[in-house]
């Protein structure tokens, strides 16, 4: 079973997203702030990470950069969830290396389509 890490400080988003992903046969682990998210990304061996941008402690872009510039983790696909606000625009000045972006509010089918680019077997389990 493919393991997906969801990092978002909005508990409702995490809950609905993980509910649907579980229904589609993924294993989900969740983190509710940047620090916890980075920790789990490094230690829980996720196959894919879904990352919110604006979060307490460490923002999503920074986590993304930290993972993508580390040879050990750079192959983990990362999907960023963005609200496309100007605060986020400011953060994005540097390359983040994220694989995909989805904009809030998102359609579940879009998320699934993006995941399937990286985790082909996910749905078959």
């Amino acid at each position, binding site marked *: 079973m493919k393991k997906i890490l969801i990092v978002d400080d*909005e508990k*409702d*988003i995490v*809950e*609905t*997203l993980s*509910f*649907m992903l579980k*229904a589609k046969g993924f294993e989900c682990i969740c983190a509710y702030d940047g620090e916890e998210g980075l920790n789990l990304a490094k230690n829980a061996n996720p196959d894919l990470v879904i990352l919110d941008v*604006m979060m307490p402690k460490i923002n999503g872009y920074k986590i993304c950069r930290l993972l993508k510039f580390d040879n050990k983790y750079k192959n983990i696909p990362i999907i960023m969830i963005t*609200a*496309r*606000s*100007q*605060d*986020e*625009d400011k953060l*994005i*000045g540097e*390359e983040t290396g994220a694989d995909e972006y989805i*904009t*809030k*509010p*998102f*359609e*579940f089918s879009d998320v699934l389509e993006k995941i399937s680019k990286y985790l082909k077997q996910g749905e078959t389990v």
Partner: protein
Amino acid sequence: MTKIFLLISEEANSQIENILKNNELMEAQGELEDILTQIHHFSPDIILVENSIKNCEFTVRQIKSIAKNQNTQIIFLIHEDIETDFLNLADGLINLPLREDILLSTINSHSKIKKSLDRLYENNKELSKSLYQLNVLYNTSSQFAGTLNTSKLYEIMIEAMEKTLSFDISSVLIFNQFSKPVLYLNTIHAPSENLIDALKIRSVLNYKTMFENSALPHNKDFDEIEIVQKTKQSRSNKIYTIDSLSYDSLFAPIKVGDDFFGVVELFRQTPYSAEDVTCFQAITHQVALPLRSAKLYEEISSTNKKLEKLEKIKSEFVSIVSHELRTPLTPINNSLEIVLSGQAGEITPEAQNFISMAKRNIQRLSGIIEDLLDLSRIQTGKLDLKYKLTDITPSLELLQKTFLQVAQEKNITINLEIKQKLPEIYADLRRIEQIFSNLVSNSLKFTPQDGTINVKAEVILSSEIDKTKLISPYIDLKGQYIKISVQDNGIGIKKEDIPKIFDKFSQIETSLNRNKGGVGLGLTITKQLIDSHLGAIWVDSEEKKGSCFNVVLPLSDDFKIFEMDLSHALIAFGDVGIIKLNYNKRIELIELLKEQKLLNLTRLSKEILFDKNERKEYWVYIPKISLSSFDAIYRTIEDFCIKISSTESDIILSKAHSEKDGIEIGKIINILNN
């Protein structure tokens, strides 16, 4: 009456005193030193010297040295039997024995010479003073032109008056728009407390007197006057008392037109001449003009600051609101999706219908948020456009599919007619799709049941476009264009309303009788996006018969591509200069410029710069900078160029650069080229 000093023997004395009795005479007394003191105090017009007196030559030389500037005439009385080889010291000669008529006529003519010389001397003095005043005025006017700092202008003014009008006391009362009035007191010696108070009252009185019959231009609290006092010789014991107010004085207002800045009054113990008055007026008039400029400048910059702040607050507000709205919308949407999917338990068809409705409205809400955010980005110049060579045919074909459901609800047919194979254009595909879907959704809104919408695309020449119909502002159209038109048979638009529909939040009918949704941001954004693509839009419409929205987008050649990158850079960075470099050089250069914080790359420029495969030439965007920091860039590029010995480079300046900048940048280019 002539003042005559007599340095003669006693024999001659009695005779001469008698002849010259109608003049003011003084006889020499005592030794040489006493004589010199006597002459100094008496300041005679003529000195009569008999060559028989003791030490005659030495005495005359001494006299001449103290009377140097006084044009005093020295006349020798000569005994022919005495050798005199210093006659050249004299202005006139009379032989002894004395003849009365010769003495009188000689005295008379030398007295006239003395008077003429005095006049000449006075005129000369006046002339050199005027010349000096003119010189100071000239310098002052160039100093005035060099600053917009108000207090600096007053300093220059007071300094100029000090140089040209050598006042004892100057009292300058100045009004400021935003602060307390200031009284500048500049004096040679220290003023007494009473005098300071008196000058304060006097300046206020002077000011109020000027406006006796009209309203005061500055109605300030005069108890609040701030006094800035400077004394030139602060160590001297002399103090100006209240008596100084009886000195000769000059007074003038500082004003130009209706702008009133203050009043100046100068006091001097010795009287002022007519020329001084002219000079004084010239200075007060000269200072008023730059003061007005300074005032206007202050007003403009404070308004600008306010506007900038407001603009920032507004765009931040929009950004925050849209972020805050999106975040809760996400779990709502997700939850509805879960329920709809049946994963959370079975739902009735009716419930499904209502939940779908909720979902549709969430999509609509999120579209509005997206529009608001786009508009805020457009206004702050932060719209991130990713231009690429693009085939727009698929996005046109997609339109029918996208709007199929909405069209079916109203039984509207959407026809698509692409007359020929469309060439690729340089565009941001996502934004092009936004333009098309905004136009079609707009038409759908205003087309009645069973209507038709025709979407057409073709290649045309700019000469086929009726430029009078274009919605302004538009750029000069040249060459070939793809024309896309969206025609409906809806309610149509009145001719005079056409420009209005591209205004923010406009929908022609007022809220009471309108029955269509949408805040009307779509067309405003559409117009802005078309502008960014160097295209144009116009509307053909007839009321009750329908409208046709026409968009033209340019076919891209190298120049258009460059122009679009440039205009985008101008939007994104404000004032920029652009250096075109090839790939290898630019990365090094950019790193160097970034290290020195001379270059801020945003995501966009970075993408253009680092996009290795797509284009051969790249642009470095350098924000417009002051010439001092330009030196730093210059050096950086210089160092860099020695390292890489570049061969290919080119530069394009924005309008924001001055000619001087151009020369500087030209130098860099020369270095880059060699």
